[in-house]
């Protein structure tokens, strides 16, 4: 019996040692920097007025990063418009952040009926996405924060309308 305990102890120590070694040998770059509250970031709207994402704190906030040169982004926008119309009264707030030049964004928004705020930016938007875990910088990229401002869902790539509805109604119902 004692012998078995000894064996088990050595085994657990070995496992712990392996995990510790992993920590030590892990490249420093993999450790995410202690990010600031993601909702403190601010971007301008088309009128040039800066908005802090924290403005919408208290709602279920969906930040959708898109661009006019990105077909899958444009494809999912109508679904977001529908969701905003349906669940807006229940406290859902979409905010579109375009990784694009102002005139491109203005031209697109003028042609479409988008019922939620659109902000834009270039380098700063790219950097912000990177901080939020979009390592490859590709679009579309969507973040969902709950009413307390905690990040609840990260979507890289197109978000199917049905999936989006399911995730968002779930968080809204809390």
């Amino acid at each position: 019996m004692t012998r078995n305990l000894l064996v088990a102890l050595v085994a657990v120590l070995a496992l712990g040692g392996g995990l510790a070694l992993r920590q030590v040998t892990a490249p420093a770059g993999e450790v995410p920097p202690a990010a600031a509250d993601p909702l403190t970031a601010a971007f301008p709207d088309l009128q040039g007025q800066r908005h802090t994402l924290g403005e919408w704190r208290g709602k279920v906030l969906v930040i959708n990063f898109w661009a006019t040169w990105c077909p899958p982004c444009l494809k999912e926008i109508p679904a977001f418009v529908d969701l905003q119309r349906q669940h807006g009264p229940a406290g859902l707030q979409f905010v579109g952040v375009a990784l694009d030049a102002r005139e491109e964004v203005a031209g697109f928004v003028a042609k479409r009926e988008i019922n939620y705020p659109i902000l834009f930016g270039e380098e700063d938007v790219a950097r912000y996405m990177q901080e939020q875990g979009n390592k490859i910088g590709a679009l579309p990229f969507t973040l969902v924060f709950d009413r307390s401002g905690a990040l609840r869902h990260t979507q890289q790539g197109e978000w199917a309308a049905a999936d989006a509805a399911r995730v968002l109604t779930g968080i809204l119902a809390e």
Partner: protein
Amino acid sequence: MVKRFAGLNLLLCLLALSQLAAAGVLDKLDRLGGSSTQREFLPPDEAFRFTHEAYADGQLPLVWTIADGYYLYRDKLKLESPDGSASVGKPELPLGEEKNDEEFGQVVIYRNELRVPVPVTPAGGATTLNFRLSYQGCAEDGICYPPIHRNFSVPVAATTAAPPAADAPAQAATAPQLPPSEEASDVDRLSALLADSGLAVVAATFFGFGLLLALTPCVFPMVPIVSGLVVGERGQGGAARGLLLSGVYVVAMASTYAMVGLAAGLFGRNLQAAFQHPAVLIAFSALFVALALSMFGFYHLQLPAGLRNKLESSQRGARSGSLIGVAVMGVLSAIIVGPCVAPPLAGALLYLGHQGSPVVGGVALFALGLGMGVPLLAVGASAGHFLPRAGAWLERVQHVFGVISLGMAIWFLERILPGAVTLALWALLLIGTGIFLRALEPLHEAASGWQRLWKGLGLTMVCYGAVLIVGASAGADDVMRPLLPLTARAEAQVPAAKAGFATVKSLADLDRAVKQAAAAGRPALLDVYADWCVECKRLERETFANPAVQARLAGFTLLRADVTANDETDRALLGALSMFGPPAVLLYDRSGAERRAQRLTGFVGPDDFLQRLAALDAP
């Protein structure tokens, strides 16, 4: 004592776990099992690998290697010289592929390999040309990358020093004068050898080839299978019966080859591909599983009771039934094992196709089949002779055959199942076998040396099986290197090997691609490939993925003809290349002429392959 062993087993397993933890394997497994159902996308520089060739003749060729499932937009490619050190002309954009985009309408995109020569003139006195390149692309699965901007410089000295590209015209002039008949390839030599000999000599030659082929790892597994049939029929007739059954099998197999030879003489087509249909493969695989189960003694392979009763009433009926079964197996095995004896068979079929005589074709391949069957006959006869009537020893031999049969079943399915699934099946087989070898049961103190040896072997199998499961869940598909996806460096290598090939379908595609390569002064390589061709996959895995080969092939335009479908276009291509099926590797020199001497049919290892490539540089 028993307890101590149990404890040691536990210790060993946890030690193994700690090693895996250190290697970061647990993290990766964690990620795999995570709740996220989103797929991982490549970083932009891996999705679109950019490089440029040397500036020569006023042209700067820009080259992208685009990963599978990713594409670049034609109208987003832009090269400028911001500091005016060069004037940039109109890029020679290839035609590309039309894509109907819901938002943008008809757009032109590029996949796989993209090469864009851009006319560039240095501004007076500039020694370094500075460029800014922009391009943008997306992934098929619904993401787009922001426009990528890249700054790079090209020294003008490269214009006058003019490395390989400038030599190309000189080579192009000399290459066609090479007497191609003097440098005969494997296949050519074989058909030359056969071209002026009589029918008897042809038959004898093919018999000899068959004998040699039987010793290749592809045909050899058939030996235990036939033996299995014979052993399964034990007590029914001994050596004579064994010889008869093996004989029937061999003659059936040889007849099948004979018919292929006949058909090759008549039509000169690749018939085997038609028999690589998933249904055939699944049926054959199921047959092996059934055989294996009977070897393990789960049941005795026999006809349903009702039918058996009828047949038992006449003994001759039962006997002829099993003979027909053996014959059918012979026929099927000839067809399915065919592709892995591709090189000699290709040579034979090329010869027979050229000969245009169905008789010669039939006789030659019948002799080949007989030659391949000689070892089977020998084993069939001796198995009936040497094997005892019953006993534990015989049972163990049957079990070994059973395991081999299961292995064969998996091997057949490898062509149609995803790699990770086959890997899991191999793991199942290994662990199951290990358990049957009592790997996890404690040894008695009085255990004999043999028992200890078996347990050791069994434990090894169980451990390797466990490694295979880890590999399979990480998406590995190579039984010999199951942890490949988990070792970061290898991870970068393998997709590169795959992404490097541009696909050609028709003969016109091939001509265009080879001409394009020749225009750029690049040698080209054509890999003739099919999904159902195991040797092709081995070639890709072991030879093309080899770092030395990769380095050597860096200057090549890599082309791949995927003949999986074996449709009209594929057959036309194979016919035009005087070829009967994959795998084959064709090399084109800088002038765009194929070097027949270096043509490869069948699998070659990295070392041999490098030698062939070296021969390509010789004038």
